[in-house]
């Protein structure tokens, strides 16, 4: 770490802007990416988050130049790179399986990009040395990839990608193959390096926790389109669509009907049997809605009130410092309620559920509720 400080000013390339403009990719008749636009700031980490088959990896492969788009453009610092083949784009990429060259030592792997650019001699050696110091693998330079652990292999892959001073760094599910503890270490490490180098970075992942912890902004993708592109906190607290809402974090979906809208407060009668008041935007009285509530925004109580509804308590599971309760509301809607774990000697039957005072549930029109959710 200490050795880095003097090296980093020479290493650091200025962060580039990356613009994806109305990009469309087709595989035969299937549309993998459908008119995606993203404007990414210099030095920003953007996570492409979505279920498998949502087009996030395809988008990454277009930026890297491995896949040709059917329409739209990719611009780095405002200049189109679509006409360039992959080997002239100067894009660093780390694959999920690292794709290290198995017949080359760590040193040869890291030097590969420099050699491919025609660099020779001491300059290459110095650069390789500095990259290996940066990822703290100086002691392993003569090892072959298969003699390294998963985390070490990933560091090599990272050093190899960074050695050529790429203008953009692409990470394709880079932490998926690591076990839980190592994953967190590597996430911190990658974030540290990225900050230090000021590299504009795109991270493809299907793991929402990873996206939340590593990315400055998250593009949630579904079926080839971006559903929401915003900061992790905004996406968690103010999901724009039911898909985003369901994909990020756990949520409870409560169907209901808007009874009245007064000013910006809506009165919603839940099918579960309670009437709640919520801030409402663009929701008309009389419309059917889905109320989405995070598990930590619900409380259980032993007594009934006007804004609580009866439930049938189910299992309670301890989850780290929290306790997760399962319950069923009238009509069979499954609920999850999370509360801090505390000693409760005399557990009275808490048969009623309500929103916490600071709850900010999201309201979605019922028609957008997908059948599969």
């Amino acid at each position: 770490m200490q050795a880095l400080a003097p090296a980093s000013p020479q290493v650091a390339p200025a962060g580039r802007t990356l613009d994806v403009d109305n990009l469309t990719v087709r595989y035969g008749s299937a549309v993998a990416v459908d008119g995606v636009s993203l404007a990414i700031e210099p030095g920003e980490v953007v996570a492409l988050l979505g279920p498998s088959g949502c087009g996030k990896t395809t988008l990454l492969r277009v930026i890297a130049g491995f896949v040709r788009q059917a329409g739209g453009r990719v611009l780095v610092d405002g200049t189109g790179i679509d006409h360039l083949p992959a080997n002239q784009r100067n894009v660093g990429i780390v694959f999920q399986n690292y794709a290290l060259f198995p017949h080359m030592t760590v040193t040869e792997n890291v030097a590969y990009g420099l050699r491919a650019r025609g660099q020779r001699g001491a300059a290459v050696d110095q650069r390789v040395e500095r990259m290996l110091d940066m990822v703290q693998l100086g002691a392993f330079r003569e090892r072959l990839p298969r003699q390294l652990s998963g985390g070490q292999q990933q560091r090599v892959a990272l050093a190899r990608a960074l050695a050529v001073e790429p203008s953009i760094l692409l990470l394709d599910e880079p932490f998926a193959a690591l076990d839980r503890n190592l994953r967190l270490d590597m996430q911190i490490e990658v974030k540290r390096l990225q900050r230090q180098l000021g590299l504009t970075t795109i991270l493809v992942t299907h793991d929402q926790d990873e996206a939340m912890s590593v990315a400055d902004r998250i593009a949630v993708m579904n079926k080839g389109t971006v559903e929401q592109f915003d900061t992790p906190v905004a996406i968690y607290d103010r999901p724009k669509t039911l898909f985003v809402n369901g994909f990020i974090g756990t949520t409870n979906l409560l169907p209901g009907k808007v009874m009245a809208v007064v000013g910006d407060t809506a009165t919603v009668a839940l099918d579960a049997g309670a009437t709640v008041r919520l801030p409402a935007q663009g929701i008309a009285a009389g419309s059917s809605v889905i109320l989405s509530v995070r598990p930590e925004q619900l409380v259980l109580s032993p007594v009934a009130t006007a804004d609580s509804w009866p439930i049938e308590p189910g299992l309670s599971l301890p989850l780290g410092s929290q306790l997760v309760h399962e319950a069923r509301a009238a009509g069979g809607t499954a609920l999850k309620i999370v509360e801090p774990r505390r000693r409760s000697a005399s557990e009275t039957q808490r048969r009623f559920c309500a929103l916490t005072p600071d709850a900010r549930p999201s309201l979605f029109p019922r028609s957008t509720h997908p059948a599969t959710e």
Partner: protein
Amino acid sequence: MSITTAAHDPSGPSGHLPSFAREARLRLAEWQLALPLSLAFAALFLAPLLLLVATSFFNDDKITQPGFASWAKFFGDPFNYKVIFDTLLLGLKTVCATVVVGYPLALVYMDLSPRLQKVLLFIIVMPMLLSVVVRTFAWIVVLGREGVVNQTLLWLGLISEPLRLLQTELGLVISLTQIEMPLMLLPLISVMSRLDPNLRDASAALGASRWRTLFTVIVPLSMPGLVAGCLLVFASSTTAFISQTVIGGVRLIYLPLLIWQQSLVVYNWPLAAVASLSLVVSVLTVIAALSYLGRRSSRHLHG
């Protein structure tokens, strides 16, 4: 110390013995599985080979007088050295031709869709599905004076009179290349299809051209398949008696033809045995050298 005592007293000083004994018994069981093949090998391969060695140490074709005369006669004749050399050279030429044609074909195969891969694989395996005699006579039709190649070249006006392709080494190498191609392609394809496709992308993203990727990544990593293919093609083409004789004719003499003449025409079995052993030893020497080089170049892949 028997196994039963150890098993009765697992807590004693020899308490570790049962596991050792179990391991020994397991190894014996594995041996038993290999026994039928080992016996067949001993009876049908090792015994005839020993018989061959024994036969070679007789002086006369009646096999009555033991001695070294046959060896002296065979290696005293410079013509025989030329035959050995030609045989090995034929193998090497065929290997080179199958590599030059086969390697690009294997690369094309990797880029095809699974459906087209099946079609290509069928075409590749096709020569193996036909009788060697049929394949060889088909090549006579193709390469003959009135054959397809000559007709086409004449029609195109590239030549004014038919080329002599049959009974030449060129014609023989061309036909052996096609006949032995599956032996090159099958190991090559099996190794190449196990290569991580991301390696190619990783190389490109690092700035390497296609050629650089081919020679620094794909060729080194496909070396085990390439070496296996070369060994098979070499061993098969140097001993391809039917093709050598039918296409090469009697003007081109290779070791298999020499052996056939000595054993079934002249009935000099001791001399045929010497020639056979020369073929076995010379081919095995080249194969050992090739596989040694191959192992050295792909040491990184398996410990």
